């Protein structure tokens, strides 16, 4: 009578294809592997003379960014263009929603323009779910970051980067370092890493930057780098926002850097072939030392390249799933 609802029914078609990409949580392993395989083929393609494929020809993709972003927006734009889609970029600052137009109104207007896909970034957790469920269920919704909840394409590009460098996920120990509390990236990484079956996931942060009961997500919690990084294969750093200093979460950037900033000394705790990742943009000297960020073990620029491929893979999959679902609905209506 009073059961919790299934959060994952929303992003899959009735026969298990992706039709919205809202979170990595709960998606089956095969689907994540399929996304990585497809993305792999796009990485190879990007090294060729002609970088375009016609998978989204004639389709309209709207990048709806309610939060500022240059990196994520531009990779989504490039990905859509390489899939031959028509692309519209909308930066909607929070002030325009204060003019009385609700999120719902904004989206319904765009739907009326016959958009086929929304790529949404929004400051509220659950915004992409809300849009997919209640506003425009027939438009494929790709979550480009919602509040603290999820940033699934970032997590998948990280998974692709790991797989291209390490091959198999099974033996890997992965540490995620920094502001876990406010990080949608960390949450999506944790779910993806678990599903892909890594040996161990660790989070390393002071308690003020750790959400309550984070262990329930299947991670081991460390509060110091020396033990947390021991025997680790992959180090995923997170960005630290400057405003965290104002809210009594941390005393100073300097103290954070001393304890949790990744420099060459701390990198030595990890395995000798450990790789270093960061979703960007980097705060040099706050989370990471320049020598490490630019060093031979850093995969930070690979992540950007892989980001385009992963977004192409996710967009093409979600579009075909959404079209299949629409087709099935139309057929059902015809029969009725």
């Amino acid at each position, binding site marked *: 009578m009073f059961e*919790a*609802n*299934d959060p994952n029914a929303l992003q899959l078609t009735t026969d298990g294809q992706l039709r919205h990409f809202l979170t990595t949580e709960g998606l089956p392993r095969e689907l994540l592997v399929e996304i990585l395989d497809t993305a792999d083929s796009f990485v190879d393609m990007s090294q060729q003379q002609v970088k375009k494929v016609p998978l989204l020809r004639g389709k309209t993709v709207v990048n709806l960014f309610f939060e500022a972003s240059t990196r994520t927006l531009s990779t989504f734009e490039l990905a859509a263009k390489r899939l031959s889609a028509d692309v519209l970029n909308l930066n909607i600052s929070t002030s325009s929603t204060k003019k009385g137009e609700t999120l719902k109104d904004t989206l319904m207007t765009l739907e009326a323009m016959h958009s086929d896909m929304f790529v949404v970034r929004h400051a509220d*957790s659950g915004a992409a779910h809300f849009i997919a469920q209640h506003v425009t269920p027939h438009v494929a919704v790709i979550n480009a970051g919602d509040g*603290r*909840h999820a940033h699934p394409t970032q997590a998948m590009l990280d998974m692709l980067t790991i797989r291209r460098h390490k091959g198999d996920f099974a033996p890997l120990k992965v540490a995620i370092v920094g502001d876990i509390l406010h990080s949608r990236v960390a949450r999506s990484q944790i779910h993806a890493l678990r599903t892909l079956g890594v040996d161990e996931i660790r989070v390393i942060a002071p308690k003020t930057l750790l*959400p309550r009961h984070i262990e329930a997500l299947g991670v081991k919690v460390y509060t110091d780098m020396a033990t947390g990084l021991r025997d680790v294969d992959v180090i995923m750093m997170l960005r630290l926002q400057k405003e965290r200093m104002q809210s009594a979460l941390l005393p100073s950037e300097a103290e954070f850097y001393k304890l949790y900033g990744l420099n060459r000394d701390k990198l030595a705790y990890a395995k000798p072939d450990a790789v270093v990742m960061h979703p960007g943009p980097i705060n040099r000297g706050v989370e990471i030392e320049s020598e490490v960020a630019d060093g031979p073990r850093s995969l930070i620029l690979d992540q950007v390249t892989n980001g385009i491929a992963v977004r192409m893979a996710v967009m093409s999959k979600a579009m075909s799933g959404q079209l299949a679902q629409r087709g099935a609905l139309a057929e059902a209506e015809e029969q009725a």
Partner: protein
Amino acid sequence: MNILIQGGRVIDPTQDWDEITDLYVSNGEIVARDQAPEGFVVEEVIDASGQVVCPGLIDLCTHLREPGLTQKGTIASETAAAAAGGITTLIVTPNTQPLVETAAVAELIQDRAADIGLARVLPMGALTRGLEGEQLAPLHGLASSGCIAFTNMRHSINSSQTLLRCLEYAATHDLLVVFQAQDNDLVASGCMHDDTTSTRLGLNGIPEAAETIEVSRCLLLVEQTGVRAHFGQLSCERAVQMVAAARERGLSVSADVAIQNLLLTDENVNGFNAAYHLQPPLRSQLDRAGLRQGLVTGTLSAICSDHQPHDPIAKQAPFAATEPGMSGLETLLPLSLSLVEQQLLALPQLIEALTAAPARILGIEAGTLNIGSQADICIFDPDAEWTVNVDSLRSAGKNTPFLGQTLKGRVNATLMDGRIVFRR
């Protein structure tokens, strides 16, 4: 009007009645049981066979949206919903626009309700001006204008000194203070219980301490001032234990719980369904068990609806941006009956928690079927099933997480002041 309520299972915990019998109502009063009084001419018969006849329900917490927020509900729409839910007395919160902080607003609400005549409406007054937690509201004047109790709702009174003075002043005039205990500093931008589900969903959490710290501060100041005090809608186990411990020390405080907190948990928020965005938040399974235990032991003596009707727009946004609260008047009884089905309470105990107990907390003469008392009566079929949907709800607020669900227990008739105010 002379009404015969025939052949129902008459349950009145105040009289220890639980038997199949007839009730006779005349001129607004219950005049006899079993045998008609001499000279009683039946003008109207309500066949109550197979049904339960109990005192009209008393709901300790309803947000009435009039004046000022009539897009969410009106006194007419919400008292009609109350009547359809078997509720004859509504204790309403002061957060209308303008607030219940002047005699004019208190009287306006009561006059409107009396004109409509579907339910008794007893307003609670603001404890501080503007609910801002700084200056005392005119408590004595408001009480003279019919305010039954005083509350600052979930708006913090940051200064303990100010809170102390509010309680001293209320005690001076023997006024009841209702706490909806919440430390807003700890709530910050929280919108659900702080636990694994909030961590997974990336929603800001409301820690248990937001409630327990405030309950603790209030209990200590109640003890110091001797004010009549009641805690509304406790949400966590530890708060129940704190109230129980205070009562054991001899402090005369009471507490209630909203029915949804007895049935749902924070896990229901999975999937970001804004219908589950409630305040107080739905908490953990342990908390729910603690609240249920509190109900059994009597620390929580009453169950309320915490009815908060909204217009559709209020819930059409990402979870944290939606307005909290659910529409609950019409589901209060059927949802409460599920506690009997689950064998947590016997039916007379449940009826006590919905009628006599809230009357006792408020110090009003209601919640009884005793001969000579006002004829506020609820007649319901405990086995009838109905589906909660937009059309079956009379409340203007369709914002309930139970939408689409089939519930057991349906009100067939409600009498208020001896008049039939609802009949199916």
